[in-house]
Every structure is written in structure tokens, then in C-alpha cells.
């Protein structure tokens, strides 16, 4: 099998830039997903009136529609009603809209895992509501949630591969263009795979390390 190494070397800068874009989208997407997810799960945990219903609707909407459609809606749909967002903004909003509900579920399962007896035990030593949440509920919820939070982070980073559909120059888009222009299909796809691996593997390792650290107290190794 003969690979066209010259082509690979020549297209490296393009890939590098696209990888950077993908990472940026992934970073903001994950960050906002975490924030949205956390807030939603708090609303659900404390059963905040009205907001609870809104969160439920959001989660159903977000989980039961494909990201591609969400992106099209943001990019093409909103333009029709006079709201024009940049591709990057659409991509980040789309990812956060999707990721938020996944993160909400992850956090919620953590909150629900905190047993009533742990909470009563906290109350019985005189902790206030806020202290209880801060010192007991959050740390315990987090150590239960962290594996799914990690899985969601990787899922979201991979999911960025779809934003090319709304003209963001990400890795997928660059690859498609290169294939279209030079027909170096194998090389282009190979580079795509390698770069995704190079981005995701370290993230995955960091997450595994974090997970072990956070879960050590309660679950050991």
C-alpha cells in the first residue's frame, strides 16, 4: 500500500487549524454543557416549581432530536426570523443544547444516589441546608456522576464532527474538501482518524485519572 506522504505533509497545516477549531468548539461546548446540566439538575433535585417543567421539556427536546436538525434550526431556521448567528456560535450553542441535557442526567443520577440517611446524618450534626449541600450532597453526587460526565465529554468532542454541516471549517469539513479536490481519500481519512485519536486519547486518560482520584474515598480502587 502506497501512501502519498507529500500530500499528507502538505495538508498538515489545514488539519492543524481545523483541529484547533474542533478543540475550541469542544471546549466551549463541554463547558456550557456542564453549566447547563448542573443548573438543570439542581432545579430537578430541589423540585423548583415552574422551572422544573421547563427543564423537563428542554431535556426531552434535546435528547429526542438529532444534533444535525438542532444545528440546521439554529443556522438556517433562525436566519429566516432575522436572527443571524455565526457558524461558530451556532455550533457551540448546538453542542451545549445537546450536551446540557446529557450532563443534567449525569448530575441528577449523582444527586439521587445520595442516600436519605447520609442527609439525616448531616442534619443531626447541625449542618445548615447550604452546608449540607456543600459538604455532603455535592461531593457524593459528584463521585457518582463523574464516570458519566467523562463519557459525555468524549461524546461531545466526537459529536463536533457534525458541525461541518453548517459550514464550520472543522476536521470533517477539511477532510471532505480535500477528498473532493484531490481524491486522496485514504490519506485524508487516515489523518482524520489519527487527529481525532490524538485529541481524544489524552482527554480520556485525564478523565480516567480524575475519576479514580474523585472516587477513591468512597469506592477505593
Amino acid at each position, binding site marked *: 500500500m502506497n501512501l502519498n506522504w507529500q500530500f499528507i505533509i502538505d495538508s498538515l497545516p489545514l488539519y492543524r487549524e481545523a483541529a484547533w477549531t474542533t478543540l475550541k468548539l469542544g471546549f466551549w461546548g463541554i463547558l456550557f454543557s456542564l453549566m447547563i446540566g448542573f443548573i438543570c439538575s439542581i432545579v430537578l433535585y430541589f423540585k423548583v416549581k415552574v422551572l422544573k417543567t421547563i427543564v423537563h421539556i428542554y431535556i426531552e427536546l434535546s435528547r429526542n432530536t438529532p444534533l444535525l436538525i438542532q444545528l440546521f434550526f439554529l443556522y438556517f431556521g433562525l436566519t429566516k426570523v432575522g436572527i443571524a448567528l455565526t457558524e461558530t456560535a451556532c455550533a457551540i450553542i448546538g453542542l451545549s443544547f445537546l450536551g446540557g441535557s446529557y450532563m443534567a442526567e449525569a448530575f441528577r443520577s449523582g444527586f439521587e444516589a445520595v442516600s436519605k*440517611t447520609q442527609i439525616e446524618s448531616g442534619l443531626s450534626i447541625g449542618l445548615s441546608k447550604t452546608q449540607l449541600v456543600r459538604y455532603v450532597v455535592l461531593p457524593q453526587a459528584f463521585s457518582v456522576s463523574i464516570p458519566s460526565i467523562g463519557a459525555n465529554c468524549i461524546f461531545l468532542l466526537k459529536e463536533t464532527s457534525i458541525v461541518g454541516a453548517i459550514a464550520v471549517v472543522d476536521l470533517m469539513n477539511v477532510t471532505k474538501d480535500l477528498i473532493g479536490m484531490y481524491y486522496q481519500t485514504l490519506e485524508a481519512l487516515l489523518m482524520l482518524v489519527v487527529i481525532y485519536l490524538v485529541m481524544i486519547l489524552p482527554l480520556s486518560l485525564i478523565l480516567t485519572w480524575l475519576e479514580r482520584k474523585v472516587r477513591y474515598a468512597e469506592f477505593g480502587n
Partner: protein
Amino acid sequence: MHKEANEVLLEIKGLFKKYDDMTVLDDVNLSINKGEVVVILGPSGCGKSTLLRCLNGLEKIQGGDIRYRNKSLVDKDVNWQEIRQHIGMVFQNYELFSHMTVIENILLGPVKVQKRDKNEVMEQANQLLDRVGLLDRKDSYPRQLSGGQKQRIAIVRALCMNPEIMLFDEVTASLDPEMVREVLDVILGLAKQGMTMLIVTHELSFARAVADKIVFIDKGKICEISDPDEFFTHPKTERAQHFLNKFQY
């Protein structure tokens, strides 16, 4: 053990508690003097745990009054965070915080709730841990301890708040038989020091040894309040007799 001048710490008057439509505590009257050890006995489901939980503000009550140092705990504006520092509680299922080491478990209340100096609390914690023979387990996590060890730590955690009264709810019920002793010894030690305690237990010989007063509850009502020797040799009510018979083979 020995009664001090009759200073009433805790007074329960006409306490009435329902879960939905089911009456669980019915007109319970009981007062606990300073330094007194009161043991509550009664068949399963008679409302013992519920009574203790009411005294720690973990359950709402539907009638009657609970007074601590003559201050009603039934008022709407009662500050339970404050009261719970004086009324410590240890549960059946050694609920140590699973994400914290032993010493972190012990320090949390005194440092965060009572805002005491960490070093001072640490010293007290060390002394108490030493007394229950667990000083070397200070940095362990609960999952690394046996049931009996966890329960002794739970007692230390409650004691470190310097409570005036301790409530114990069947603290040996989930323990293997060989661990029961080590926990009961700690409680017996507290009794000798004059700690005021309200103890729910199924360990009858322990009850007899530790109690100043036995309270027998059946179906949510107090059937009799007796001196321990009297209760175990000549129970006044038929129900108590029946209860005691069940423990004899």
C-alpha cells in the same frame, strides 16, 4: 447509675405523631433529667425510632410539646441547627459520611457548624478516638472499617459536638455479635461519666445494666415506666411480660 438534682433537660408532653392516617405515637409523656440514662424498650414497629427522630427534629409532630431546657421545640421559629448541637444522635446504620476520612467526619460539625478552632477540636477528637481505641484509624475511610468501628466513630463524631444529651437508636442492631460488646462498652463508659442519654436497644442485659429508668412502649403508647430491676423481675403490664418472655428460650 446515679441521679443528680432533678434538673429536667428534656420533657415530652402529650406527643402525638401520625404518618398519613396511621398513628405512630399516641400521647407520649416522658421527662429526662440531667445525668439520667433512659432506655426505651418495645416490640418492632412500636414507634421507638420515630420518637427519637422527633426529638432530633427529623420528623414533624401532629400534637403535644417537646421542651428542651424548658424551651419548646415545636415552635415554628425553633432553630434546629442550634438544638441539634445539644442533642446528639447516633443511628442504627452507622451513617458516617462515606466520602470523608474518620477525622474529617469528626471535625465537620465542630469546625463548620460550631466554628470552633480546628486544633482544639483535633485534640479533643484524638482523646475520644483514643478512648474508643481507634486513634490509629483516624485517616481511614468508612469503607475500610468494620461495622463496630464505624459505630464507635459515629459516637465520637456526635460526642465531639459536646452535646448535653445523646440519643442512641439501636446502635448495635446491625452489628455482628462479637462487635456488639465494644460499642456497648463505650456507651456504658459514657453513662459512668454522667452523660444524659436516651437509648433504644434490644440488648436486654445491657439495658438493665445501663438504665436508670426503663420505658416500655407498645403500639405507640407508653405502657410503663419502671426502675430497671423492677421491670425485668416484675413487669407491671401484661404486654411487657409478654415482650420479655419472647426473649427467653
